[in-house]
């Protein structure tokens, strides 16, 4: 029987395993150094916050793996030999495979800051990081202040986590506004305000210079490029992640920043594949980055590769871009492409609406010449994935999207709706006379 080994039990590897099992009878082994069982990485924060216990963030019961004949091995892969098709776990345990899937995810970035390896300095990515945080910052007596460095999604999540234990937080963000390499200015500005609403000392345009140590090798303060020294007991380093592929350095598998793959997720060596955060496309697909460290893309690559492994070779062909996040109390969803003011092209125009009191806003991107709808960012209003996916397929105009926006609303029943206000603002700005279409179940559910 063909033996498939998967390194990494994150969403990419596990999705591949599940789909291979659905399609075939092959022998499947998943090797992980992190945990015995698959868990939802994006939910680690809720364990620290006390919303859930660790067992709750495991999407499958422990008996699931036996029942589906997926062998789980706990250990660190130290060496891969593509020639002999073997790999070593730990110092000696050898496994041989017919096909190998590398799905080892990411590790937190470190940029060589003085003091970055002190005690009390950590990132937030793995289960081990969570355990470490629990001992570094169990409460506000032991951790009197935390400084977070790096203004992205993990940074703001770490800030939210620490605030639930009433730990004072200073948040150093290199950019002039939070996540403004991704978010358009209006949205980024709103999130700045919301961060401060949660009593966080947000310092924009500020860089870390060094982390100072106490006599025991623990971090005691950080120094910023503004000349400030901030006393603290925890330094959270969250300036992004990088593929976790160091163990492959001498394997002969071609590496870039990650494991280089083609559209079929094949590496430079036969029968070895890479998916998820650690895979790097040789040529970026569409407007995507070559490395996509996103939950959803990991899952999609896993689905695709399972087909290839099971004798139906197909390319990784992701549909329209989508993503989501939550900034404290504000939910964020995006469908299609909306680039930040810094990164957007000349041809991409934006329409932005923000509620006068509530933390609710939307940005629609559209093409300058033909007014084709390109994408939407939505904050505080849930939108229906399927409807936007359809509009993007149909290459609708921004005017069409504005008129029928009610069809895309996915907020719970009885919620206040904002479509009229949004459209009024649009009409005023564009000098149009569009009328809002009433929400129609027929259109939403595509009944003919």
């Amino acid at each position: 029987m063909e033996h498939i080994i998967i390194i990494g039990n994150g969403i990419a590897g596990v999705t591949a395993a599940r789909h291979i099992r659905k399609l075939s009878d092959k022998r499947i082994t998943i090797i992980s150094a992190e945990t015995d069982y698959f868990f939802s990485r994006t939910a680690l924060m809720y364990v620290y916050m006390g919303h859930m216990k660790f067992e709750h963030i495991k999407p499958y019961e422990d008996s699931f793996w036996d029942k589906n004949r997926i062998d789980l091995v706990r250990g660190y892969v130290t060496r891969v030999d593509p020639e002999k098709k073997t790999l070593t776990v730990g110092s000696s345990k050898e496994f041989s495979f017919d096909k190998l899937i590398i799905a080892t995810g990411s590790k937190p970035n470190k940029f060589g800051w003085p003091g970055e390896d002190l005690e009390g300095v950590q990132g937030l990515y793995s289960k081990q990081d969570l355990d470490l945080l629990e001992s570094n910052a169990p409460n506000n007596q032991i951790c009197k202040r935390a400084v977070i460095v790096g203004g992205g999604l993990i940074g703001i999540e770490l800030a939210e986590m620490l605030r639930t234990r009433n730990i004072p937080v200073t948040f150093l963000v290199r950019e002039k506004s939070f996540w403004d390499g991704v978010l358009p200015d209006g949205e980024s500005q709103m999130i700045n305000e919301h961060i401060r609403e949660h009593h966080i000392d947000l310092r924009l345009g500020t860089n870390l210079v060094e982390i100072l140590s106490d006599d025991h090798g623990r971090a005691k303060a950080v120094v910023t490029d503004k000349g400030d020294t901030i006393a603290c007991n925890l330094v959270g380093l969250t300036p992004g992640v990088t593929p976790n592929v160091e163990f492959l350095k001498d394997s002969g598998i071609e590496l870039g920043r990650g494991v280089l793959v083609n559209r079929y997720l094949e590496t430079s060596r036969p029968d070895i594949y890479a998916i998820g955060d650690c895979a790097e496309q040789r040529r970026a697909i569409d407007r995507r980055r070559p490395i996509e460290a996103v939950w959803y893309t990991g899952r999609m690559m896993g689905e695709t590769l399972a087909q290839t492994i099971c004798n139906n070779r197909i390319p990784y062909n992701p549909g329209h871009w989508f993503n989501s996040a939550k900034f404290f109390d504000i939910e964020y969803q995006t469908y299609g492409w909306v680039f930040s003011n810094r990164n957007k092209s000349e041809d991409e125009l934006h329409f932005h609406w923000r509620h006068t009191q509530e933390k609710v806003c939307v940005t629609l991107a559209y093409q300058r010449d033909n007014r084709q709808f390109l994408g939407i960012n939505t904050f505080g209003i849930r939108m229906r994935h399927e409807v936007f996916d359809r509009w993007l397929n149909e290459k609708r105009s921004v005017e069409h999207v504005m008129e029928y926006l009610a069809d895309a609303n996915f907020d719970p029943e009885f919620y206040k709706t904002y479509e009229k206000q949004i459209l009024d603002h649009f009409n005023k700005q564009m000098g149009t006379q569009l009328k809002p279409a009433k929400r129609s179940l027929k259109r939403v559910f595509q009944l003919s």
Partner: protein
Amino acid sequence: MSSPDKSMALTGQPPKALSLPQRLATLIGFLGLAILFLAAFGINFPNKGLWMSLSTILLFAGIIWYTALSYGQKTKGIKNDGVWFKSISSMGFWGWIAGIAITSFYIILYFFPEFLGLVRDGKNTGVIALFDPLSRALSGNPASQWFVYGTLYTVAILAFGIKFIWKYRHNRYEIIRTISVMFFQTAFAFIIPEIMARLNGSIPYYDLKNIWPLNYYNFERYRINGFISSGDIGLALLIFGVLSVFVISPILTYRYGKRWYCSWVCGCGGLAETAGDAFRQLSDKTVRAWKIERWVVHSVVVFVTLMTTAVIYSYLGNDTSKYWLTKSSFLTGVTVLLTLVFGWAMLFKRKQLQKDAQYGAIGYFVVILVLIALHQFSGEGNIFLFKSETLRKSYGFLIGSIFSGVIGTGFYPIFGNRVWCRFGCPMAAILGFQQKLFSRFRITTNGGQCISCGNCSTYCEMGIDVRAYAQKGENIVRSSCVGCGICSAVCPRGVLKLENGPLKGRIEANQVLLGNDVDLMDLVNRN
């Protein structure tokens, strides 16, 4: 393979300790309870109406002040911080203490009301006497243990309802739904029946929203006699009782799912959603629990159907000239109705029934037929195999008292707040059967946005593993879902929406949109 997760050994103390004002608020609430306790232990308060009002006011004040301290300072949004660190809400020491205390209260209430001061032929004493003035003001009669219970029940729903609304103040679905249960409890369960009793003494106490089979005694002889002897109003109530089972509830369940009842109207649901909200995360989500649930709750449905049939059968006559409904025509009617329902389900909906649900349905159907056939060979007074009175008494004891009261509410802090609704309520099971097969209601999964975090499953009070569906992009159509909307509320990615829509495409998994190109999704669906 089996190294335990050591992370749960918390080295530090997250902010789970109560602040001084929170302690004071708790103390005020407990002072309200203390008055009731002192009365129960024989302190004879001079001005009963005043002391009862004081007790109620203290209860309200304690709960609401505590709520203000918990949520008043926080921004609006989901704030389940520390739920699993606090011993009361994570099956810790205080959880068990609370469970034992509430369970004891129910045992006394159901089986030893004299300890509460109930005197059957004379003046009440103890805590029941404390409620006499309010009872006289409403119905003109002295209080009973049930009046005391009803009052406290209503106070709990109102006070904790305010807490719930405060906690979910960003969510209009939750606000409106909670106002609805608060209204139905206060008006329909508490005030209207008392006033009806004052206006017309022979009408049986009737909580209009309490529908058979939850209200398993509604068609017993003494009640039917009571309805019939109360003239047009009584007859109207009886007809309403029958219509609500066979017409009103099926129509509403078709349109809105069983939530119209279970989390908008029902009193049991009302208490679970308000006072029980702090315990929703304790429900068991394992597949094993789901299996037990299906067997137990459907057995209760069979039990209550047999029992009610037997009870009605026992007081009907044999002579068509005296009354149009006779023993044999009634039994024939029941058989025909059950056959139609199961026949329809098996013929048109068998694809949507789980395998074992099919076995279950067929099995139960056969059992009922066999029992009815047996009746042909059993003598007068015996119904099926048992005496109808025995059947009724054991149902009342096992299901009505032990299951719905002692276990159902007493075990909130141990098994979660919907133990009764999930494992025991025959009404929920019947509505659920319809919800699964013939209703516009579903929880829609928003394409591929699920991150498998597990908040939805953790906070589902009915123990549904919501995530199992959401992460596959499937809609959730489960018979047990009461439509409380909390899965949608706690979802950090806006993935879940409770809605009513067309039957077509409600369940089909091939609606999935996980983000890959369409061809691949076709392949994934095919297998």
